[in-house]
């Protein structure tokens, strides 16, 4: 994930669709419930996880998120889970599934399961942030009694994130201009002094921000406007999502479908 795609994701959060208008608390809780249920499936489950893909899909379709964005971002994520999972086929070589004489070991099945989990959890998080602006997520968390100091911290971080990244990119550009095309990367010592300069600029910026806040009557307490209403739509959304996921977790729908399809063949 680059800073560029993070900004794109941020802009998507300010859209106006029925999904965007849902209460941020409802969306956060539903996402968390969804991820918990996905993660609770046994290690060797692959097929039962597939119908759960409907949740992020519905979120993205109704939230009008361009599918290309989602696909590219999901694939571009640094794949720690994939790196760890790829070892499963090496250590778990008991044959598990046989199709037409071809036997597949348990390791490959559990690796496939990790991949499916990875795609589901990542796309659920992506669907949340692409349909909810970060300030609204923070408002929701504030209403859920997350400590105020932490909420204020996240709002400030969000406010200055892109500003400071641009500051860093300016530093980097200045340095690139002065190395006359030499392709070597930064030595740690040069990087450290760039970071030091960046820190001092950041520090001074914080001082200016503080003075500006004082000029506007800042007394140490940050007040947040609270304009959230948890309506029946939101309640229905949370209960519907969690109930549907729980049913898919408890009832072997895919198995039934498979037997039906098999008898039909």
């Amino acid at each position, binding site marked *: *994930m680059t*800073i560029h795609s*993070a900004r794109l994701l941020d*802009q998507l959060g300010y859209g106006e669709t029925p999904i965007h208008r849902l209460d941020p608390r409802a969306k956060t809780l539903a996402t968390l419930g969804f*991820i*918990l249920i996905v993660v609770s499936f046994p290690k060797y*489950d692959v*097929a*039962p996880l597939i*119908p759960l893909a409907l949740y992020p*899909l*519905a979120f993205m*379709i109704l939230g009008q998120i361009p599918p290309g964005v989602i696909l590219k971002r999901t694939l571009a*994520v*640094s794949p*720690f*889970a994939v790196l*760890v*999972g790829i070892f*499963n086929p090496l*250590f778990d070589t*008991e044959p*598990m599934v*046989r199709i037409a004489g071809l036997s597949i070991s348990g390791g490959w099945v559990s690796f496939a399961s990790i*991949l499916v989990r*990875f795609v589901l*959890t*990542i796309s659920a*998080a992506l669907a949340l942030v692409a349909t909810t602006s970060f300030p609204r997520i923070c408002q929701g968390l504030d209403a859920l009694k997350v*400590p105020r*100091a*932490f909420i204020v*911290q996240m*709002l*400030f*971080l*969000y406010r*200055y*994130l892109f500003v*400071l990244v641009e*500051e860093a990119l300016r530093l980097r550009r200045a340095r690139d201009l002065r190395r006359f095309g030499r392709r070597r990367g*930064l030595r740690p*010592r*040069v990087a450290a*002094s760039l*970071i030091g300069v960046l*820190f001092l600029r*950041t520090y001074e*910026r*914080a001082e200016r921000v*503080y003075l500006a806040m004082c000029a506007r009557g*800042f007394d140490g307490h940050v007040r947040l406007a609270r304009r959230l209403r948890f309506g029946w739509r939101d309640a229905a959304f949370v209960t519907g999502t969690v109930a549907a996921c729980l049913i898919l977790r*408890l009832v*072997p*729908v895919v*198995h039934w*479908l*498979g037997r039906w*399809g*098999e008898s039909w063949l």
Partner: protein
Amino acid sequence: MHMADALLSPTVGGGFIAASGGLLAYSAWRLGREPDKRRVPLMGVLGAFVFAVMMINFTIPGTGSSGHLVGGMLLAILLGPYAAFLVIASVLVVQSLFFLDGGILALGTNIFNMGVWPCFFGLLIYRAIAGRQSRAWRLWLAAVVSVVVSLELGAVGVVLQTLLSHRTDLPFGRFLALMAGIHLPIALVEGVITATVVQYVRALRPGAVGIGERGMQAAANGAVGGDRLVPVLISFLGLAILTGGVFAQFASSHPDGLEWSLAQTQKGGTDPNAPPVPSWERVQNRLALMPNYDFPRGANEPTPAATETQSPRGPWPEVRVGTSLAGIVGAVLTLAVVCVLAGALYWIRPHRKASL
């Protein structure tokens, strides 16, 4: 270094969310007790600074690969433990949402691995080595040692959480060696850069180091080793060991809390005469498309009739080719249904241009 949702079990993920959340609430309360107005914008802007630092890539000597500063220890040294912990936690939240590093459920583990060790443990080491009016070499040594220790502890945390979740088959020893080995050079470079930055800042802006604790009743004045930190740390370590032990117990006897509780409820529901273990296995079989471990292991394919008659347990017969075929047919059919439903949703949604 970021733990991912896909590798976690609900028990481990939830447990660490509780642990990190508790510590977060404690840190927020500690900061709120001494409201230093200046600190509010500084902490926020420094959180953004961490992202800016990631734009400055440097080459790691000897390997030719490039990396960037993670900055946990740097924040701890510059801000003090509680403020730095809040900043790191906020950075991880934004990373999990906008940069998709880690995941939402994995936030607890990530805050624990990358926040707790530098802010509470690493800082203790740093202060013990660096002392008050430290000379340059002591500062360097302190920074490098504390960064290496806290990063390696974080790596060990990732290994333990992964293994407790039972989603991978990596053996403990090899996984640990792999993670510790990968993180050692990274930690050394991070330590050197942290030391250089701290020295640089101290030379140009002596007031900026330890700013987060300025309001904390001159605690920094006398305290070399952070006297107040020790009881917190000890009680916290005790808590961690306790929860770790409980997790391990729980994880070994029942692979996963949710599965276990499901089994409990189902056991109550189905016929009471059945002995507990077969009932549990029946539940497993019903929940899992490809139930664990009891597949014909490389033996000749038994005839369907034989399996049917010998089937030792309840409604679902022993897995054989037919059943795994059923599984795959089911998966394909489900995929088709999902696609059809998604297409239907696409058609019925209000067709308007997304307003950016």
